[in-house]
């Protein structure tokens, strides 16, 4: 069985590698071989010969195949290859958030996420093949998402909150078990740091400046001149890297105590018990980098998209509407695949098609929205169609990013009815 994995893996890698060669014949042969192997793998998964790890390989393989003709064509390859690293950034973030108990289902979750992210990267690729203006919704969405995460991190504090960590991991405010409330109370502790939030705001401001530059400067020659500002992006990113807060203070305990008192009162327990609640760690507090990971991933992702836009403007890469539409269509197909795999996961784990939760409604809503935008932009030579074709891939990626952030602010993964710890 392991050898089967190996064969599939090698064929997928081979598929990617063969695209580097210019020989179309070789690329075609590799494509057919991958296709046959993937059908075999799918049957194996259905028959129970392969477990859900096979599903992952299947997805990765299909992705490889989907990217295939795009990458194989020389004229488009140079652009599409640049879209691939963008796929890796959100994947790296997602890979860290699969804390489910059942190890087998985790693989199915990974497959579903991989399909969705692959689909999104293709939609992003579709945006990349068009004018850089259509891409601009994405960095704006990542900034909005980071803001959302910061403001919803704590239910007790207003403003942009940063998670705190001590030597033993995240800091909690805890009320031990008391009579009448045996489960106690546990709250994640957050605080803010004005100068660090200032640096984030500076970075956001710089990104927004670039976005407005691309959107408002209509003259191509002027835009190209102005695009040199994009070279400042790495400096702005390294600012965040260099100036991370090394020490953060505990927040004011009063709101936490008030909340605890309220929680006790609603359970008809004497609120005096709230006096025994305390922060579990008090010394050596820093920024919780694990907790901030989604924020950093989002910031890096937005910056990457902007860097790519800048590069595209400076190199004066052409607009490719048909190739863009094709990639868009594939992307939508993969978003549907992601939805199917998510539902398979729910069905195999729970025995039902999910929990009828808003997260599931929104997931399917986004998939149907993607399909509808694809169809609206299908006739890209008509007046309305061309508008949709130019703008909708970028706006679509932005919508997915935003809803993923909303899901995360509810401690969940988009599409999955699980609440993370």
């Amino acid at each position: 069985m392991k050898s089967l994995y190996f064969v599939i893996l090698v064929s997928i890698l081979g598929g990617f590698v063969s695209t580097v060669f210019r020989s179309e014949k070789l690329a075609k042969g590799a494509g057919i071989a991958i296709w046959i192997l993937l059908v075999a793998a799918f049957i194996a998964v259905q028959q129970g010969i392969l477990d859900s790890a096979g599903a992952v390989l299947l997805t990765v393989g299909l992705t490889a195949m989907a990217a295939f003709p795009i990458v194989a064509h020389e004229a488009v390859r140079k652009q599409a290859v640049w879209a691939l690293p963008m796929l890796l950034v959100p994947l790296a973030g997602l890979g860290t958030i699969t804390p489910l108990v059942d190890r087998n289902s985790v693989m199915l979750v990974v497959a579903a996420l991989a399909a969705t992210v692959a689909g999104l990267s293709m939609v992003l690729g579709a945006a990349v093949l068009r004018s850089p203006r259509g891409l601009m919704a994405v960095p704006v969405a990542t900034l909005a998402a980071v803001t959302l995460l910061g403001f919803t991190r704590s239910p007790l504090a207003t403003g942009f909150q940063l998670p705190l960590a001590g030597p033993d991991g995240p800091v909690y405010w805890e009320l031990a078990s008391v009579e009448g409330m045996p489960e106690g109370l546990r709250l994640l502790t957050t605080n803010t740091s004005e100068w660090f939030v200032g640096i984030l705001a500076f970075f956001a401001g710089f990104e927004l400046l670039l976005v407005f530059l691309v959107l408002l400067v209509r003259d191509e020659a002027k835009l190209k001149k102005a695009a040199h500002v994009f070279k400042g992006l790495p400096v702005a990113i390294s600012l965040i890297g260099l100036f991370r807060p090394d020490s953060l203070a505990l927040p004011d305990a009063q709101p936490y105590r008030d909340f605890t008192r309220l929680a006790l009162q609603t359970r008809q327990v004497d609120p005096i018990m709230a006096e025994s609640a305390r922060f579990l760690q008090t010394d050596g507090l820093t920024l919780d980098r694990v907790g901030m990971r989604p924020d950093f991933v989002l910031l890096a992702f937005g910056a990457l998209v902007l860097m790519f836009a800048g590069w595209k403007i400076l190199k004066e890469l052409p607009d490719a509407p048909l190739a863009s539409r094709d990639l868009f269509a594939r992307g939508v197909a993969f978003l549907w695949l992601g939805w199917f795999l998510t539902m398979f996961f729910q069905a195999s784990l729970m025995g039902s098609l999910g929990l009828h939760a808003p997260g599931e409604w929104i997931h399917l809503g986004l998939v149907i929205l993607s399909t509808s935008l694809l169809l609206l932009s299908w006739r890209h030579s008509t007046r309305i169609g061309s508008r949709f074709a130019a703008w909708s891939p970028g706006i679509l990626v932005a919508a997915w990013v935003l809803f993923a952030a909303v899901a995360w602010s509810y401690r969940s993964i988009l599409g999955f009815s699980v609440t993370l710890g």
Partner: protein
Amino acid sequence: MKTSKSNTSSILIDRAWRLLVQPATIGLLLLVASLILLVGPMNAIPSSVTYSWWTAGYQAEGMARAAASLLAMAGVLGIGLLFNRWNLVKGVPSDAPSDGAKSGKSTWIPAIGVALMSLGAVGAALLWMFAQTSISATNVSLPVGRTIEAYPAESGTGFMRVMLPSRLKVRSLDIEAGVAELELSKVGEAGVVQPLEVGRPVDIEGMRYALVGIEYDPRVVRGVFSSRDADTISATASLGDTFKVTVDGPEYKVTQVIRDYLNILGPAVEVESETTGRFWLFQRATPIKNFETPNGLRLDTLESAPVAIIGVSRGEPTELFGAAGIVFLLGLGLFLAKRDRVFGKTKDGEGAWSLNEAHSLEEVS
């Protein structure tokens, strides 16, 4: 020029067909359907801060039906669209020149792929939407030993209690193996024990039970008890459980579990039996001097009790959904397998179709 009545109506139908069977029309229908799905649940956002909205059951039958009918309409128009394409391909001679791209006979594969994908996706989405109109599945957190006879489910207007056909209790939980033992019992009858594995839902009496996850919840604690008697067997019990520490000794019920009594006395458990009444057990020294616990009962320690998360649902079949998934996957494979571009002449002049074609940067309308 005179036109007969049937001719006029056929022209009207022709016009309507051309107006309706357009990608943009289908796109518009889908756009409305997607907005229903995206905006609908926002109605249910609770006013207070809570993390449960996103994953808690939500039900809006009307909206699910509206989205389903829009989707079904879009599906029907989609068939028309593919029919148009078929007409176009039919008129193309196999040796027609089409600037190097493939045309004619070999081009049916991606189109069939799209047809299958649409069929699978629309079918599955419709199944999902109709599933939204029934009582939702619910994840119930059950500490070992707790018995329930109903579970809360979302019902459009609020939570309602859905009675289970039998009382449900988690007898044991093996975290390493991911197996729970369920005990299903009717009042006055001995229970039936049913092992439940992660990823293997079980159908019993029309209900489907699934072990969705295991939490080692530090907030749920259980006591480990023993006694000073010679033949003592140490026993563990959570809140509400009964236990014995000697074979023929009395049965105690745990009525309260507290981690730190008054924040100074440490772990404490209140137990009750028929012969002794209620009394407190302390892990550390007893606060009341010369207090002898009945039968020398001791609280050895408190430990975290595992909690099983059991997914409870009406056992609705998911096979049809799986079939839709297979149709979709087949379609996806066909869609990706070949490039496709067709040129042809239609009544309206030159027409072109392009599906899954990324080989050319040239413009095709």
